[in-house]
């Protein structure tokens, strides 16, 4: 295991300390329980947005805390959902009197912990709503399973809802917008290499030099199937087709196209992938009116990428474009 860390058990706390040192104007980092919170929280009269999840997906979620995006993020251990006490403390810290929205990725652990936190928060008199993101088309949706995973649409939901909350929309409207983003966002990912959970000390799986995994999530888990390594253009097809078919996206749809790196894949490759993904979108008659290219929701040092399409409406565009001032996303401010 080759990592720039000191000890597996110290990684999360030390990375948080690094964030705190690097972004004092934007965020504060609380340690007991641990959460990242806007430097100016709570913002009076504004809906508080709280997300969180296991660590190892940086910059998500802590890097998205700040004006125009999240009010707080709760980091768990690597790939481990955070706990209800973190979420409750974060909710209290950001409650400006307009209620709190939990944005939750659909993993059993995340869902249950946020549920418990919502129960505790309600018991303390806070108004809390929750939206679960489940956009990963690699997983067959079914009533009998845990359902689809929540992956890269989460980043888009956090930005768009952050813009809406900043604009003063009430909790119900922000939650509704969040559900709409989830309903219109679809993702699929792939890996060239596995990643190593610091505590585990060895890769979660192994791939031969001529293999790749299609349909991975963001936790170093194996994907739906292992296939021979293909050129980037073919990979773009393998990710885009199921995404487009699933919603389905249709001719004329205005979309945001998000090509995301898994942590170990450099930007030059993401742009090679974006080129083809954009071409495929246009071939299907989609209008790519917004996009995002970069490593925003990662799986430690995994090499690989995911592609997300979000069908946009006017609200989503407005709040996507709204100013944002966080460690990882910053524009107009």
């Amino acid at each position, binding site marked *: 295991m080759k990592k720039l860390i000191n000890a597996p058990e110290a990684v999360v706390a030390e990375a948080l300390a690094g964030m705190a040192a690097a972004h004092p104007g934007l965020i504060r980092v609380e340690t007991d*329980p641990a959460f990242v919170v806007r430097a100016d929280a709570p913002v009076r009269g504004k809906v508080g947005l709280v997300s969180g999840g*296991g660590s190892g997906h940086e910059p998500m979620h802590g890097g998205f805390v700040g004006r125009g995006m999240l009010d707080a993020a709760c980091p*768990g*251990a*690597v*790939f*481990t*959902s*955070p*706990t*209800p*006490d973190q979420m409750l403390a974060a909710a209290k810290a950001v409650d400006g009197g307009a209620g709190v929205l939990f944005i939750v990725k659909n*993993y*059993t*652990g995340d869902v*249950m*912990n946020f*549920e*418990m936190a919502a129960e505790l928060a309600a018991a303390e008199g806070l108004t809390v709503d929750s939206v679960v993101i489940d956009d990963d088309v*690699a*997983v*067959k949706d079914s009533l*009998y*399973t*845990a359902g689809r*995973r929540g992956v890269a649409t989460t980043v888009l939901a956090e930005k768009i809802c952050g813009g809406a909350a900043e604009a003063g929309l009430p909790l119900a409207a922000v939650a509704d917008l969040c559900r709409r983003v989830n309903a219109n966002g679809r993702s699929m990912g792939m890996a060239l290499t596995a990643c190593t*959970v610091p*505590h*585990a000390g060895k890769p*979660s*799986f192994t791939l031969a030099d001529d293999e790749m995994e299609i349909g991975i*999530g963001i*936790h*170093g*888990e*194996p994907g*739906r199937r292992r296939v021979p390594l293909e050129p980037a253009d073919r990979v773009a097809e393998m990710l885009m087709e199921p995404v487009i078919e699933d919603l389905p996206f249709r001719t004329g749809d205005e979309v945001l196209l998000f090509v995301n790196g898994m942590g170990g894949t450099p930007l030059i490759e993401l742009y090679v992938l974006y080129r083809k993904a954009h071409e495929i979108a246009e071939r299907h008659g989609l209008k790519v009116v917004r996009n995002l290219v970069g490593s925003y929701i990662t799986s430690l040092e995994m090499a690989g990428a995911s592609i997300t399409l979000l069908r946009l409406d006017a609200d989503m565009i407005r709040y996507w474009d709204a100013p944002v001032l966080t460690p990882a996303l910053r524009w107009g401010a």
Partner: protein
Amino acid sequence: MTDSLDVAALTAWLDRAAAVLEREKARLTELDAAIGDSDHGVNMARGFSAVAAKLAGAPPADPAALFKTVGMTLISTVGGAAGPLYGTLFLQAAGQATGKPALDAPALAECLKAGLAGIVQRGKAEPGDKTMVDALGPAVAALDAAAGASLPQALAAAAAAAEAGMMATIPLVARKGRASYLGERSVGHQDPGATSSFLLLKALADTAAG
């Protein structure tokens, strides 16, 4: 050999469980690496070491208080799926233990039954979904069936049933938790949560056996 477990005995169980989980951390992590995300071992070890420290720092008054402390500690230290589920188990068990200075076999059966019900309510897993429920369910049934037996015998039977249930997860297709994302590829792997459930019950049986 005892007929019931008081706070001291239950604390001994949880200390033993903490030691066992620390020892088995790598194995649990490996099981989780195959069909999950490689954290079950370290999550459980972290949680139970926090439990042991908590109990040592402020010994609870009775089994109900002890279970409540255990449940709250697990919920705030384990995280992931296992934290809320095992936390719920102990919180529900606390309800059943209320007012009892020590727990005999029937009382323990009630506690475990309520705990399992809590897990099912939280997690919605059914038997055969390849989860901890597949180890805990048979253990509850075995405890019930061992009504006439001594406490150590009853708990040994429960642990054996949990072990069998744990082994029986190997051929299953996962339908709950992270392993469900793998679909058919989850077949052939033992469920990590069922394994930690067995280890907890085994530690309990071993504690009762003295």
